């Protein structure tokens, strides 16, 4: 029922669903989805059979690429990203951890050169047994995913 309405509600664009409740606003802000000049519908704390509560974002006329969708995997590994054309789902991105992540998070190391120069932040992502590590290309410091994603 929900899925039908979602697709119906959006003629062209991208639906990011099954975002853990509370992460929707961060995703909206970090990926600058509200700054694209397109209509964005968001739902917070929607009821979900599997997740209890979830957030959902619909962006009109913007098709997230696979690489962009993968950047979401750090916050919301179980999110679903569907690309809609003419009210039909034409692409379901299966989220995979990206090898690198650029320009989304600031480096947690306050003495890293990336804070004071005109460059995008850049991290190498590596999956470890119980954690995901991000290593800054510039200062070469490694951080647990939770530390990097918590930097405002």
């Amino acid at each position, binding site marked *: 029922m929900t899925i039908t309405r979602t697709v119906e509600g959006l003629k062209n664009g991208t639906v990011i669903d099954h975002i853990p409740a509370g992460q929707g606003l961060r995703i909206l802000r970090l990926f600058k989805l509200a700054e694209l000049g397109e209509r964005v519908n968001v739902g917070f704390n929607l009821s979900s059979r599997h997740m209890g509560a979830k957030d959902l974002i619909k962006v009109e006329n913007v098709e997230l690429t696979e690489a962009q969708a993968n950047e979401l995997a750090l916050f919301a590994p179980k999110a679903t990203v569907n690309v809609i054309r003419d009210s039909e789902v034409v692409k379901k991105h299966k989220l995979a951890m990206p090898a690198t992540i650029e320009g989304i998070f600031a480096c947690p*190391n306050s*003495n*890293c*050169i*990336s804070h*004071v*120069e*005109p*460059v995008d932040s850049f991290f190498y992502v590596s999956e470890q047994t119980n954690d995901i590590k991000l290593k*800054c*290309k*510039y*200062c*070469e*410091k*490694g951080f647990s995913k939770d530390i990097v994603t918590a930097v405002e």
Partner: protein
Amino acid sequence: MANPLFRKHILSIPDFSREELELIVDTAARLKASPRDDLLQGRLIASCFFEPSTRTRLSFETAIQRLGGRVIGFDNASNTSTKKGETLSDSIRIISSYADAIVMRHHKEGAARLASEFSEVPVINGGDGANQHPSQTLLDLFTIRETQGTLEGLSLAFVGDLKYGRTVHSLAQALSLFGCRFYFVGPEALAMPDYICEMLAERGVSYTLAETIEEVIPEVDVLYMTRVQKERFDEADYQKIQGRFVLREDMLKGARDNMKILHPLPRVDEIETAVDASPHAYYFEQAKNGVFARQALLSLVLNETV
């Protein structure tokens, strides 16, 4: 065929393969045995020390001039456009249009890698904050090979500040490619960081944590001393550890004949001056080797063949 370091940036030890490290060490040994004064003939090198450093700067500038090259640059950022607010990336764009290579030191971590993205010529990292100082590691490797005849399968102890000392981190990264084994001796609060221990574990390198210098001395080929800085501790904690990581001459009795003591310098009181006369002491020769290691780096970066 051009050597693999020709026109390459020299930024960080993990960027190097084992073969590249060996090439630099071999070249340094050759230049020490038969000095050359022509390898940088007609070349102009920018020596950009945004953060002051005496030994590294003089050693690089000596290396350049001994090889027949010329130097432009500055020894601190206070009289440069950095003071006016120019970004590092703009400074590097300009400087790289003047010189054939840039040697730089900067207090921010990652500065050299960033500079390499804006430079038309090779950038050589002379230290970027607490991150990397590859030419120090290369001179350490050269000195170890010179004294031991090999880099393969050696036993080394690192003593002192293993947490903040970028020298020991980079040297451990480099030697992990050569099947060495390590002993770490230092206060718990200054232990080797997790990322280095994880890297060693991943590469199957064995290491042992030891309590005292005495217990590792008979086991090692190289004793690498570093300074425990007083300002890292409050007074009471410092009193407890003070003296525990100081090398005295009487401790050297059980040392192997080939054992050499290294130290990146400056030394304060962690090696008693009485040790200086011991045949095991090699830290002053090590500092001298800095010029040859830097000559090797510059020669390889600026010449197809050396």
